[in-house]
């Protein structure tokens, strides 16, 4: 296949025809489409990071000389329970199935304002809680600008 560009010309002169050969272009497109179809990523996934201490290993982080508050978000069947050191703030569910993430978010934002240097929060879950609730809680904690989230078992930690 080719495209002919006829520039015409005066009588007696040799006409100037420039044929643009599109066959290599079609071949290139076909090869590119085949390659890109094979390497295409159709499902875009992301990650939510959580830390846990390796069992049996001592913490390698330096112990802070200034005592800081310990913030824990406990997820149980009744709802959330926000524990700051020894103070507990229960946040019950809105209805049978819906957890009150907005109230949790407000409480966490107040804590962040009170402790702007504090970045770590522990999320503790009971056994029967579904994974999506755990992710929802972790997401709410990160939205409140606590970037260092650890996930532990509420029962095993004696909470």
């Amino acid at each position, binding site marked *: *296949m080719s495209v002919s560009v006829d520039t015409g010309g005066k009588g007696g002169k040799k*006409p100037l025809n420039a044929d643009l050969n*599109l066959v290599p*272009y*079609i071949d290139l*497109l*076909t090869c*590119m*489409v085949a390659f*890109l*179809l094979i*390497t*295409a*990523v*159709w*499902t*875009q*996934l*992301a*990650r*939510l*990071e*959580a*830390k*846990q*201490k*390796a*069992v049996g290993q001592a913490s390698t982080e330096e112990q802070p000389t200034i005592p800081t508050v310990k913030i824990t978000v406990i997820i149980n069947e009744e709802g959330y329970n926000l524990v700051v050191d020894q103070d507990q703030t229960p946040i019950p569910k809105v209805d049978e199935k819906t957890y009150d993430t907005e109230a949790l978010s407000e409480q966490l934002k107040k804590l962040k304002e009170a402790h702007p240097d504090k970045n770590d929060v522990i999320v503790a*879950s*009971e*056994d*029967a*809680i*579904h*994974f*999506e609730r*755990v*992710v*929802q809680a*972790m*997401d709410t904690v*990160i*939205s409140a*600008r606590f*970037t260092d989230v650890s*996930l532990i*078992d509420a029962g*095993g930690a004696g909470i």
Partner: protein
Amino acid sequence: MPIRAPHSHLFSSINLHVISGKLGHGGRRAVYEALNLVAYIDMMTMLVIFLLMSFSATGEIVFVQKNLVLPDALNWSELDRAPVVSITKDVVTLDGRQVATGDDLNADPATGDSKLTELHENLVTLKNNYKLLHPNEDFLGSVVLQCDKQVEFKALKKVMYTAALAGYANVNFAVQPKVKGAAAAE
């Protein structure tokens, strides 16, 4: 009809059949029909542009199983290459190979060990292989957990415990990204 430059014509009174056949079409209608490839090229061009925009050099890191629904998250980060552990109610797989069953997940930790033995051995093997292949690099201990959103935390904590025993302290949960908010990495 295209306009062509005038050329020689053979008068019909001259009986030169060979010449008249070559000059005209031999009195027959042309059977050729040009195939219009313009639309085809346009389609291929659009397809290439679309596929180039969705191209990722990292490739597919996690292949989502059919019966696995991931939870949504607002504050997500880009997925990095790491061993992928898939957890459903019935089976646990590591990079596509089954390493535990639903019975192992539901077993009471009070009556037995919480560690998933086969998963632990495979993770340790992967860790050792990584250290052999990358002697000058630190082992980050990252693992990707692709967990169905209806799985209970009781099952998840066993996998996390096993991963921690094997030296994988950085757990990354695979999630469906929603509108990107403040990234956790910031």
